[in-house]
């Protein structure tokens, strides 16, 4: 009766596309050239949206903005692996994937410009609003996944969150309940290595975040988050499993936050430029471009066109943002309950008397 092993499991990591743009052909997912070009342009569009937002912010035309620069492969990879009826539950640094799941760009801008209408997505868009209280959306992802399962929908709830958010109690409860209920859920950690100023090793003593899945009896896997093909592949596999009743998966996608935490932050206070430069060399967009070029699927001319198209699209979004009619002052009252209770009607009248309607 010595010590016996009662649990023996491994955590794996998948990589397909290396920083030089070379892929492991055997592992390549089934995506044709057009599709890959489409993914590439989505990533370029994300980058353009992000850069423009930073500019707008400096000009005072945008509120606090959390940049996604460097995380485009995760957001494009997960979005492209999802299917129509799937739900997306973002944290707050998910502009790219929200866009690809149907949220109009100008609404994303509107949200960060301080306008709640930014979360009023068009009918049929299966996306939750931004979740500012870190980590709380994991629970909703379990609930939506359970809802889909109970209602017999062949759809999956895909929840994203940061490495920092894995320290919150809500992360734990959500993963554990997803395991117990075998909900139709896929959880993707965008491990960008920092939570504001806290580096990963001060966030957890666990060697990887993927291994946290062992605590919940659910599959967990790590993936190179700057590798669009690897992200797509593991997400696809996890989605297929969840869609077919196989239960939830935890995916850790390792990437890097190339920008400041938000426009209100100055990352040079707490991290070395060297680290940033190193990761710039692993830029997910550049990497995919190298792949496309090596395959003869992309050239400088296409790149110019694509960049111009992205700029044009961004400009349209800004125009749409700035063309939004001002909110009615009564708006701060009118969405509190299905019906306006008397005390709110009174308060609304006070405001309208003060500022006009």
């Amino acid at each position, binding site marked *: 009766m010595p010590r016996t092993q009662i649990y023996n499991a491994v955590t794996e990591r998948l990589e397909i596309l290396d920083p030089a743009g070379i892929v492991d052909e055997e592992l390549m997912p089934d995506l044709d050239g057009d599709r890959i070009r489409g993914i590439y342009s989505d990533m370029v569009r994300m980058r353009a949206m992000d850069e423009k937002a930073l500019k707008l912010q400096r000009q005072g035309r945008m509120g606090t903005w959390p940049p996604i620069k460097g995380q485009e492969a995760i957001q494009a990879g997960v979005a492209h692996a999802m299917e129509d009826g799937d*739900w997306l*539950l973002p944290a707050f640094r998910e502009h790219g994937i929200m866009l690809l799941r149907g949220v109009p760009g100008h609404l994303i801008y509107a949200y960060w410009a301080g306008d*709640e*209408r930014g*979360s*009023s*997505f068009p009918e049929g868009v299966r996306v*939750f*609003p931004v*979740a500012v*209280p870190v980590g*709380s959306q*994991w*629970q*909703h*992802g*379990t*609930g*939506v*996944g*359970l*809802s*889909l399962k*109970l*209602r017999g929908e062949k759809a999956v*709830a895909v929840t994203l969150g940061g490495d920092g958010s894995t320290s919150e*109690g*809500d992360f734990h*409860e*959500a993963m*554990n*309940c997803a395991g*117990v*209920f075998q909900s139709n859920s896929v959880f993707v950690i965008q491990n960008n290595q920092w939570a504001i100023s806290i580096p990963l090793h001060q966030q957890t003593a666990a060697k990887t975040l993927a291994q946290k899945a062992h605590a919940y009896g659910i599959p967990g896997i790590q993936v190179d988050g700057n590798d669009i093909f690897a992200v797509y592949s593991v997400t696809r596999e996890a989605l297929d499993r969840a869609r077919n009743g196989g239960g939830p998966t935890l995916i850790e996608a390792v990437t890097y936050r190339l920008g400041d935490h938000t426009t209100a932050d100055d990352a040079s206070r707490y991290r070395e430029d060297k680290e940033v430069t190193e990761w710039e060399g692993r830029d997910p967009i550049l990497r995919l471009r190298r792949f496309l070029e090596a395959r003869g699927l992309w050239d400088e001319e296409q790149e110019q066109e694509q960049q111009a198209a992205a700029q044009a699209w961004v400009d349209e979004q800004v125009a749409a943002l700035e063309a939004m009619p001002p909110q009615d002052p009564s*708006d701060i009252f*009118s*969405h*509190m*309950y*299905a019906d306006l*209770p*008397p*005390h*709110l009607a009174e308060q609304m009248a006070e405001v309208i008397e003060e500022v006009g309607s």
Partner: protein
Amino acid sequence: MSTARNRVADADDPQPTEKLTIAQAVRDAMADEMDRDPSVVVLGEDVGVDGGVFRATDGLIERFGSERVIDTPLAESAIIGMSVGMAATGMRPVAEIQFMGFVYPAVNQLLGHASRMRNRTRGRMTLPMVIRMPFGGGIHPPEHHSESYESMFLNSPGIKVVVPSNPYDAKGLLTAAIRDEDPVLFMEPKRIYRAFRAEVPTGPYTVPIGKASVDHEGDDVTLISWGAMVRVCHDAAELMAREDVSVEVLDLRTLNPLDRETMLASVEKTGRAVVVHEAPRSNGFGGEIAALIGEHLLLQLEAPVLRVAGFDVIFPAAKNEHLYLPNRDRIAAAIRKTLNF
């Protein structure tokens, strides 16, 4: 004890009734709504096989199965957080928090999400969900089993707060809560879960959320209360009647949105008010009530609005519960004080 005046039944015809406790009325409301609407599910700790630690979900799992009567892991934040996800995607979860003393871990999901989703999305996402929880003292349990935390949910808009005081209202209000398009916190007075039975219609009916009930009419002073304290107020009213004092007893039934109209009309008539609640006095909801009355009826008041409430201490362990909880005599003393002002 209560008039049916403010109670609206679905059907016009007189329905057959049966004598039920509050716990049974609560269970029946869930059962009827689960019958009517397949999107209604019940979830919480021990709500399934065990039937709930107060038996308020007794028999539901046998009738509706474990996919609709869901025993959850021990995680209050998950119970509410999952309910948010479910309610946003077409279900109508009725979540149970085992005791109100254990709602704290769920506050982030309740006040950070459940109460905000409609506003946050400009009405795109609505959360038809109910959060049931037994509250209040009087059963001599260990610590954290007697608390009345309503105050913390009443400075944080977006969540309705409903508290029945009798079986009829319990069933009708819970039915209304389950049908409501917004989150409703439903506080169940555990001390009187099984204390008495009353006639309750057998089929579904609703008691409207947001309407107080004038349980007993009177001219000299208005007692304002909710939950288990309503019965204590009736006792006090009876006692005062022997002193020829005519007490109006108001059961608020809903704390948000508050039925100010009924409340202010009553106090305007009597000129005196005493608020009674179990939560600590300071910054309890009694303060809001006194403030509103003072704001609207300053010149009509014959005496200050008094509060009979818990003291500003941690709810005492069983042996000292009686020192803490408002009782008939304290209420009577407050009434006399307003009369002799």
